[in-house]
């Protein structure tokens, strides 16, 4: 008898609905036991990808550690919208110190727990892309090379959104930001710059590095739980669309995250000890244009006669990702 593969396609999302899964495979969010680590009532924008990602990531980390978790936060949107004094949305032990030092502060918390013989308490550091790839980069690299027992999560919305949408080293080429305006012969952010932090993290030979998006929250949860099975420095890089900074509809956050992955523009993979061990292959490949068009930060690529030359260069980036990580759909 030939085996027939069953696909659970729902609402065009290609996501597998919880109700079709066994209890063990259901999301943490589907459980009444979830922590609500980042509770309702915070002041994130409607459709905030970072709030979504942080909520799933931390609840998964809480489940993985049996609630023995401390979170350290860099300055940024996540910190500002969650803790306007005297309110806090955090239902977990949470510390914010500065913008550029979250990895080092997390190291300190982990060291204190080790000194006190409380190895059961695990530490998550978290920051946006500015706090990770730019101002916190030195501290992050130090934490990595010492193999401190910290899972560091970067919620990457590709710019300094909290300060009014400025360019970071995670901003993609051609994207309009307040410091890479869509003017002149080369509008938006330039080509040939920026850091690929997941690969830099892998070069530190830390036990676990993964990327994820808020389009596949199940995958995000699984990676957090996988990360928590390791001791030492671990890194998770989560693409979190920002309606404000990207100039996108609040309702499109998950769709844009999916298009980023499905175009290959944002590769979703995981690596252990510096070697890629798994990729989330593209299910139905789309061109980068489908990802770029709904975002006003790329509007100059499509206005008037448009800039097909620049779109083509962006497509080359996606193609290179597909090639590098083997992301092509199985039946392409």
């Amino acid at each position, binding site marked *: 008898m030939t085996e027939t593969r069953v696909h659970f396609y729902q609402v065009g999302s290609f996501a597998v609905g919880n109700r079709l899964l066994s209890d063990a495979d259901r999301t943490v969010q589907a459980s009444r036991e979830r922590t609500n680590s980042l509770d309702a009532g915070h002041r994130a924008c409607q459709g905030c990808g970072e709030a979504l990602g942080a909520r799933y990531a931390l609840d998964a980390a809480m489940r993985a550690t049996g*609630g*023995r*978790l*401390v979170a*350290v*936060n860099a300055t940024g949107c996540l*910190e*500002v919208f969650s*803790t*306007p*004094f*005297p309110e*806090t949305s*955090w*239902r*977990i*032990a*949470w*510390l*914010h*110190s*500065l913008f*550029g*030092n979250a990895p*080092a*502060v*997390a*190291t*300190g*918390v*982990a*060291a*204190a*727990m*080790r*000194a*006190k*013989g409380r190895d059961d*308490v695990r530490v998550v550091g978290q920051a946006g892309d500015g706090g990770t790839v730019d101002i916190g980069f*030195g*501290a992050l*690299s*130090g934490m990595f*090379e*010492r193999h*401190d027992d910290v899972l560091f999560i970067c919620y990457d919305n590709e710019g300094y959104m909290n300060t009014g949408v400025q360019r970071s080293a995670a901003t993609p080429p051609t994207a309009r930001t307040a410091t890479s305006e869509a003017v002149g012969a080369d509008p938006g952010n330039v080509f040939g710059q920026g850091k690929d932090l997941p690969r830099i993290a892998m070069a530190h030979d830390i036990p676990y590095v993964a990327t994820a998006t808020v389009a596949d929250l199940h995958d995000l949860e699984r990676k957090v739980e996988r990360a928590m099975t390791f001791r030492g420095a671990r890194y998770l890089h989560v693409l979190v669309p920002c309606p404000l900074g990207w100039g996108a509809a609040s309702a499109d956050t998950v769709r844009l995250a999916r298009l980023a992955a499905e175009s290959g523009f944002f590769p979703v993979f995981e690596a252990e000890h510096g070697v890629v061990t798994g990729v989330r292959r593209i299910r139905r490949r789309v061109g980068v244009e489908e990802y770029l068009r709904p975002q006003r930060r790329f509007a100059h690529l499509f206005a008037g006669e448009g800039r097909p030359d620049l779109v083509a260069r962006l497509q080359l980036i996606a193609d290179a990702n597909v090639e590098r990580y083997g992301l092509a759909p199985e039946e392409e």
Partner: protein
Amino acid sequence: MLQQLEGSRAVAETVARCRPEVVCAYPISPQTHIIEAIGAMVKDGRLAPCEFINVESEYAAMSVSIGASAAGARAYTATASQGLLFMIEAVYNAAGLGLPVVMTLANRAIGAPINIWNDHSDAMAVRDAGWIQLFAETNQEAADLHVQAFRLAETLSVPVMVCMDGFILTHAVEAVDLIDQAVVDSFLPPYEPRQVLDPDDPVSIGAMVGPEAFEEVRYLAHLRQLDALELIPSVAEEFAALTGRASGGLLHPYRLDDAETVIVAMGSVLGTIKDAVDARRATGERVGVLGVTTFRPFPVAAVADALAGARRVIVVEKAFSLGMGGVLATDVATASPASGPELATVVAGLGGRPITRRDVEGVLGRSAQGTLPRLSFLNLDEDVVARERARMAASRRSGPFAENVLRDLAAGGANR
């Protein structure tokens, strides 16, 4: 038992007896010997449990200390000069969060021009950060102050900086009586934090505070500093009762009783100044010394009391505010009693320039003659300065002035 010990070793041994649980190390002269010694003690198991972390920068050293302290551990680090400036954002943050980190500052000049030798510019740069700043006069006091520092810090939830003169103390071998472990244990109970990161009782630390509460939060921090003014003398007294040593406290007055002229200073130079005062006293001059041990919080009332009988006050300080003048002197002026003594500032010892007994006696002599200006720079080579000013006037591209001065001096002052 008195032992001949390098200052850094005495501090390291004393810090170890305070049982720190997390120690961060980033090397910078002249602090290195302290963290090297502690690192070895952790590695061979003498100091346990303790996590010794080689961090990638001073910014990380203070940041790791912040995380460790917030998680309930006794945290210690040491730095100097550029290192302190590099971590300054975290220095303010530790105080703002009310975390009782203790840090040794091996006082050193700040560049440019780069200079590794002693002065107090680094400590002055963070005087407003919200740390208690204690200045050691001797290696014995430097060691003892660390025990008191942890006690003060943890009682008040305020970080404490123990300032000791780089090289002059850190690298000098002197007789030191190391405090017994049992005495430390009786004096310094285990750290009981007011706030702690604990999954069993989760709190948010480091929330954003807007204009509706920021002033009150900052004022509370100010009140804790004022509380320190009350606590520091009683802790020093308790310490003295246990050890017989008069280390710490707010001030170290010396021969002040009938003194008409009082020199105010901080740190190791006080020994030299006391020798000078003894010499002048032998000739019948009514001179005395006021050593400032607690620079922050500044003991305004105690300084006013100590200077109540003085007609002339001379502040000798190893730092200054460019374009203004003395830093300690400004505080002394604020504290000066209503009797209004004449106040003169002598900036001295910058970048490691020696301050000799003869220098101090010269200052006292000029003061007695009424020829000591309100602001002066001890042993300033005005000819060198004038020649560089002339070069700058003569040519727009006169070049880097530090290098010009060095070249001038190397040429025996002939490079005109």
